[in-house]
């Protein structure tokens, strides 16, 4: 695996380089594709700690709900890597030496790079109490972990799930599909309390109960207890000392950027790897992108973490461009996510005016939950909410005096794309602000009318 650094082409302006990418996820493969589009000759190696080729991490949720078999999440075949002339090394990168420009791998070899991208993603955080090593403690995190989860679910009878975000909800839905009696423990009084208001939470609660989920509000686990012989989950201990029997303990309490490789190197870190809008780290020729990167965000004017697929793709592209010397700054769009929870479509756009963090699930305070952006939770001063709800459809708008800054839609999705465009474009909505604030049906009609007029105006 040793790179011969003497291979320099004399007759090309650009020398043949060795691009090394650590991380075979959305950010890593997008960077590789971008590099190859600009540099046909150089050598490219992608390193992954996982046995499979690149797969869709969000797709894991549809594996446990039985919508697709595990192999279907593989999003790039071997031919794709061959065509791109991208070498794949299945071994964990363990150490980085920036002065020697080397990455040391678990298989004993090392790679010498000219340009290095770190796209190691984020991993699920284990619970802050014992004993997470027991058989039956499961995560919805990697393809291997998801297969284990399904195996456990086939044998298991009763599951406890902890965690406040999308992944926890997806795990609950998956376990129900696997016919496991599922108990969802929440510290607070409502679902996904960082994001949902009371009505939104109640709507989803109703849907979940209809699917047979047992929701336990204001309930916390304090310990995972083992079976008498062996290393299996037997119960969860509650604060009053009582035991809640279960054989599966699902953990989705948040994620943390994977930074082991860059710890104790000159690469500057905060909660993630700090990068500028070109995805450049503090060390020359070392770049970072995706879930592990903490990039400058013009919306919040801070370096923020996004645990979002589209952000990983966009950052991978910008990193690739910087690595080939075709630098273009990142244009971080309005963070956006759409998911399907118990049959309900939920779309979140921009800043959504979170409630105070006093009631947060303990975990989410420390670690961002999957499929979220810190931008959602940044609270600007003068934001007002407008609200419309009918049956299982809700629409919440967040705005300042002149523009919309965020929106959350459950159910009916007609307004999702228009809202995304209006928020991104910072369209002046002051003329319809009173109508929006009036809420109800008028809000929807007015917004749709405004959207049609806006489109016409843009076309002209």
């Amino acid at each position, binding site marked *: 695996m040793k790179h011969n650094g003497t291979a320099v082409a004399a007759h090309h302006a650009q020398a043949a380089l060795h691009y090394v990418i650590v991380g075979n996820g*959305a950010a890593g493969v997008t960077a590789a594709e971008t590099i190859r589009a600009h540099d046909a000759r150089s050598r490219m190696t992608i390193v992954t700690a996982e046995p499979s080729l690149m797969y869709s991490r969000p797709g894991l949720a*549809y594996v446990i709900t039985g*919508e697709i078999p595990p192999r*279907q999440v593989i999003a790039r075949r071997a031919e794709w890597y061959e065509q791109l002339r991208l070498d794949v090394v299945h071994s964990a990168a363990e150490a980085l030496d920036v002065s020697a420009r080397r990455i040391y791998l678990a298989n004993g070899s090392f790679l010498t790079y000219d340009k290095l991208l770190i796209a190691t993603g984020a991993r699920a955080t284990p619970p802050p109490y014992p004993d997470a090593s027991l058989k039956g403690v499961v995560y919805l995190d990697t393809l291997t972990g998801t297969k284990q989860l399904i195996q456990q679910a086939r044998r298991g009878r009763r599951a406890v799930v902890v965690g406040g975000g999308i992944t926890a909800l997806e795990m609950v839905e998956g376990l129900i599909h696997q016919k496991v009696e599922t108990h969802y423990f929440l510290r607070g009084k409502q679902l996904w309390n960082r994001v949902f208001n009371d009505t939104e939470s109640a709507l989803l609660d109703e849907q979940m109960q209809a699917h047979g989920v047992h929701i336990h509000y204001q309930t916390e686990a304090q310990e995972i207890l083992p079976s008498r012989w062996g290393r299996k989950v037997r119960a969860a201990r509650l604060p009053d000392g009582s035991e809640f029997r279960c054989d599966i303990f699902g953990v989705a309490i948040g994620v943390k950027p994977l930074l082991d490789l860059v710890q104790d190197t000159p690469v500057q870190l905060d909660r993630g790897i700090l990068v500028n809008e070109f995805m450049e780290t503090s060390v020359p020729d070392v770049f970072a992108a995706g879930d592990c990167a903490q990039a400058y965000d013009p919306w919040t004017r801070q370096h923020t973490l996004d645990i979002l697929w*589209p952000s990983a793709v966009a950052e991978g592209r910008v990193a690739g461009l910087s690595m080939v010397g075709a630098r273009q700054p990142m244009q971080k*769009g309005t963070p956006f996510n*759409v998911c399907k929870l118990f049959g309900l*479509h939920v779309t979140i756009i921009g800043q959504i005016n979170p409630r105070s963090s006093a009631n947060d699930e303990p975990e989410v305070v420390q670690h961002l939950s999957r499929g979220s952006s810190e931008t959602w939770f940044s609270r600007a001063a003068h934001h007002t909410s407008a609200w419309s709800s009918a049956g299982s459809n809700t629409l919440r708008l967040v705005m300042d005096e002149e523009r919309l800054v965020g929106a959350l839609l459950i159910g009916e999705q007609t307004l999702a794309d228009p809202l995304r465009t209006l928020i991104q474009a910072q369209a002046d909505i002051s003329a319809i602000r009173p109508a929006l604030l009036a809420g109800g049906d008028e809000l929807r009609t007015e917004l*749709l009318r405004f959207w049609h007029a806006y489109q016409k105006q843009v076309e002209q």
Partner: protein
Amino acid sequence: MSLFSRLFTKETEKEAITIVHLGRVQADGGRCVQCGVCGYNCPVGIDVRSYARQGLSVDDPACITCGQCIQVCPRGTLRWERMVIDEA
């Protein structure tokens, strides 16, 4: 006619436009998370995901325009390409 799933939708009353979907599936690349639910449900085995990734229309002669992929996509990535053939 039966192969081309023709759907007629009305926009707002003001601009009553008849839209006919002539059977090309279009993708909003920014919504796609590459999960592969679309292709898994495609009766003729088209790799819809690779079109979706690039934000392209499904341009495959094998497509029978059944709309399965649109229906099952959990992210709302896919829709019929809009073709205005008649303005009322």
